[in-house]
């Protein structure tokens, strides 16, 4: 719970409690061609991920002889947002590729797969904030589904600060809020067992002594998300 007597944000636009995450539905095996795949819908944000690999990394000169490599490709479908996105790569998607790769590669046991590459494709079908987090959640499930050896699972959530209130799993409406200190978007990802952070970005303004509170909210939310990822994988067969 947050001590926000002076915050302008006293009620969430969709009526959720501050630490409530949106309703999630998750399923694996949605792309039969892929070695592993998953769909992750968090409220109105829907991400689909598929994994191909491990396979021999071509060209040979890009291979890492000591361990495997993960390549992440994140893209939003042109009609996933209200204003159409022209198909192709953007600077934003390139950045998301990189942070997602970092978020996932440290749990994948790449030393077991030298000289190989694992391709992770993430596409957003419908966007309502938290897209990179939904993408990571789907991708982590797809990697497990594909039989990639992993030390732990990864779960991600976008924590927000609306004026002075810390909230879990922001929506687009909340992201656009401007009253008081405005909206601060803090996407983060936690490892399921060690509880370490593998994704952390911040966009907005937050006092240094409130930062820990945001992390705790993220950790709690990610625990709930992990349970849902686990359930979807267990119910697959």
């Amino acid at each position, binding site marked *: 719970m947050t001590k926000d007597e002076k915050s302008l944000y006293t009620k969430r636009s969709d009526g959720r409690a501050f630490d409530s995450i949106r309703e999630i539905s998750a399923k694996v095996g949605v792309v039969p*061609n892929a070695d592993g795949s998953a769909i992750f819908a968090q409220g109105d944000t*829907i991400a689909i991920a598929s994994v191909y690999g491990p396979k021999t990394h071509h060209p040979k000169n890009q291979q890492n002889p000591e361990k495997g490599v993960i390549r992440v490709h994140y893209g939003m479908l042109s009609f996933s947002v209200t204003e159409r996105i022209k198909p192709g790569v953007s600077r934003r998607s390139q950045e998301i590729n990189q942070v997602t790769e970092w978020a996932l590669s440290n749990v994948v046991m790449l030393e077991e797969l030298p000289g190989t590459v694992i391709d992770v494709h993430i596409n957003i079908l419908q966007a309502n904030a938290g897209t990179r987090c939904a993408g990571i959640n789907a991708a982590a499930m797809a990697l497990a589904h594909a039989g990639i050896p992993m030390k732990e699972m990864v779960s991600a959530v976008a924590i927000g600060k609306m004026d002075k209130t810390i909230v879990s799993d922001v929506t687009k409406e909340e992201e656009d809020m401007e009253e008081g200190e405005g909206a601060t978007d803090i996407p983060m990802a936690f490892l399921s067992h060690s509880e370490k952070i593998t994704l952390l970005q911040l966009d907005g303004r937050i006092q240094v002594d409130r930062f820990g509170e945001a992390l705790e909210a993220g950790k709690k939310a990610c625990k709930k998300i992990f349970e849902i990822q686990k359930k979807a994988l267990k119910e697959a067969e």
Partner: protein
Amino acid sequence: MRIRMPYKLTKKNILEAMSKGKRLDGRGLLEHRPIEVRFGVSKNAESSVIVKWGKTEVACGIKMGLQEPYTGHESEGTMTTSVELLPLSSPNFEYGQPSIEAVEIARVIDRGIRESRFIDFEKLCIKEGEKVWSIYIDIATINDDGNLIDAGALAAVLALRTARFPVLDEETGKIDYGNFTDKALPLVNENMPLTTTCYKIGNHIFIDPAREEEDVADARLTIEIFKPESQKVEMITAMQKGGEMPLSIEEAEKMVSEATKMFKKLNILVEEELDKAKKDTKKKKKE
């Protein structure tokens, strides 16, 4: 992972099965896989739909924009069709410039919709010579198990039928994205084109190939058909022959005949799915 790979042996198996009137999944040569339709995959689009033919899955969304009309078409709206063969959907698709496969599928689907006069482009005019509506038909593949052309074409038509104009702010003259009206696109429903691609391996003609069948096919003929009330018979609005091997006149005529039969089935399917969608929307509005 795919169960059947395009080995040399697979082509042999396919031919052997077809000589007995069968496919490797037990279907007849002119039998299509079960078709599933799901509307509303993206609430942010003017409309969106996911279409499955067996394991093939494609998504299509309609977005609208505003632009100046093209020279010579001062009172007509515009339309752009694009196809993304997402690497998510197959190990054979790559990132980068659209491949010739993607371009061909997009252009063939576009032609059928345009030439049949399914869309009344004049009704998309806001101010002659200055401002018209543009329609974007965006198709993306989710799983490629063959027959992307027919699946994509069906998705495009279903998406167009369920699309609604976004709100146009009278003052600013700009679109209020994310806010939709109840106004449907200006469509001439009797000109709705439905697409069937017929394939040939050896002497066998078949429809709706699985990926391994499409990989070894010798030739194909995409036929887009519509039936306006004023005509006694179905009309062909677009056609495309693909593949290296030639077709005999008899084969081409047989393919048109099969596409006409499929047109009738698809027509019924489209109306059924649209009916279901209407009922679902009414139910949701009540809740």
